[in-house]
């Protein structure tokens, strides 16, 4: 089953965040709890953990992109 991974809202006022880095590439196996990507906001860089286990199928943004909260960042094919 495919699931969309959305830009998380890391704080109350957050409207956008910068994708600081990908820790996985398309095609990689991902385990639940592993860090998928890093988001830079006003205060810190957050390592965002995957909520699913499966294979990362597609990614729609690159490091350095500013992304709106709830925008689809990637698709994961869940186990």
């Amino acid at each position: 089953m495919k699931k969309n991974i959305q830009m998380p809202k890391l704080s109350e006022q957050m409207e956008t965040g910068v994708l600081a880095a990908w820790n996985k590439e398309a095609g990689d196996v991902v385990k639940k709890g592993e860090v998928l990507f890093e988001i830079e906001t006003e205060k810190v860089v957050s390592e965002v953990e995957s909520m699913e286990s499966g294979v990362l199928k597609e990614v729609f943004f690159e490091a350095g992109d500013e992304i709106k909260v709830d925008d689809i960042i990637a698709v994961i094919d869940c186990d």
Partner: protein
Amino acid sequence: MEKKPEWLKVSYNKEAVEEVSGLMAKLKLNTVCKEANCPNLGECYKKRTATFMILGNICTRHCRFCNVGSGVVEAVDPKEPQHLAEAVKELDLKHVVITSVTRDDLADGGAGHFADTIKAVRKLNPGVTIEVLIPDLQGVEKHLDIVIAAKPDVINHNVETVRELYPEVRPEADYDRSMQVIQYVKTKAPQIKTKTGIMVGLGETEEQIYQVMDDSLKAGCDIFTIGQYLQPSSKHIAVKAYVTPEKFEKYKTIGEAKGFHYIASSPLVRSSYRAEEALEGGKS
């Protein structure tokens, strides 16, 4: 957005954050974690811990570092003490930290509500240790007495920054009054652990930091915290410097040598971060 140093990295687990956030919403409770946009929210919520913020989420002061909103304050929720006690039970906390907005509009500054909350938590959660992080209550001794009489285990009042930066950072507060709050608590109730803390990276010098340590010790402070100031938004006071982890370690070593029972000093330390460890460390 300015690139952050590599040591300012935190973890985020959506499920954990939503679980604790959901409980707070259900019980109509505020956390300073959320209101202050705390960088440690993800870690603390994953451990099922949070710092409660009572007396609403609107503050009557306008400190330039703080993300908590100011404006028209709300009426105090009389059910809040009971709800907070229920949340402590639900989260199975062994140590609870309770803070508040500053309520200069209330006759007792909110001291009575603090006391009611401490009592409610104790009643429903015998054995839990309680830390309150209080505003200065304008230094009014009879108001401080109300909080002291409820016998929290720790009374924390943050001086926040060095004396020289008060006009810029805490324009409505007074460095000496904050020190007097700590001194009064220690004099009146020596068994209560006293705690204070500062943010660094606001343009202070090392000597000014050591002066705060000396002043705090003189006032009878047991536990001291030092963390990096992080700018919540471009409208807030700017970060002047990102202090390195090595420098934080130096502050810890010097502070311990000066005589604090416990010092927490690292970039992501906040006054309530791992507060249980600080209390244990401060018991010696």
